[in-house]
């Protein structure tokens, strides 16, 4: 199953309970805002999205991921708006039979997300100014 959310408030993690019978692997990724963006001290990032397209691209990517890799479920929340240093901007959980396909699916999903989902970062600097972040070289 696929679950995709783009939200404007702090991320509450998806529920991780003990009720799953066939998922030997539960993999959680939390992408958090670091205190530095391209070497410059920041106090927060502000995430901007292309409303509509961002959600659609994320949904389609998640569906492709679940076809490409034999995983059971992929849940994803992406936060938009101001995210302070330390807070989570991206939360992904993947459940699968074994860890290998879960890890591969997670890696590919994030890589593609950073290529095609129209979401951008604005850096909020220590003096309060707000500039579009340069391209992220981690792609």
């Amino acid at each position, binding site marked *: 199953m696929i679950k995709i959310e783009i939200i404007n408030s702090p991320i509450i993690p998806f529920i991780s309970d003990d009720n799953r019978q066939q998922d030997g692997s539960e993999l959680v990724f939390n992408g958090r805002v670091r205190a530095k963006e391209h070497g410059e001290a920041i106090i927060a990032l502000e*995430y901007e999205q*292309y409303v509509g397209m961002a959600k659609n691209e994320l949904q389609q990517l998640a569906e492709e991921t679940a076809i490409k890799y034999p995983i059971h479920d992929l849940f994803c929340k992406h936060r938009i708006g101001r995210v302070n240093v330390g807070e989570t901007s991206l939360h992904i959980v993947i459940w699968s039979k074994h860890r290998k396909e879960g890890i591969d699916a997670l890696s590919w999903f994030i890589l593609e997300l950073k290529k095609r989902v*129209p979401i951008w970062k604005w850096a909020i600097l220590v003096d309060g100014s707000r500039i579009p972040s340069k391209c992220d070289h981690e792609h």
Partner: protein
Amino acid sequence: MKVTVKCFSQVKYALGTDDLVLKLDIGTTTEILEKVIREKAGGKLDGVSLRVAVNQKYVPENTELNDGDEVAFIPPVQGG
């Protein structure tokens, strides 16, 4: 015909606006419109690669536009 150009990230920063409504000749392509946008930016988008989306879907480079289209020139995305 009229198209709306949605501006994000560096495009928004360069043009100082969230969106533009432009009157274009029939037959205008995304390539021509991109030149218009880059000119408006006065050099601030030099070196910034832009992908094109029409009506919220990525399209090939030289796509012909239609009246009422929503166009976005998408700078490198940075989600995550």
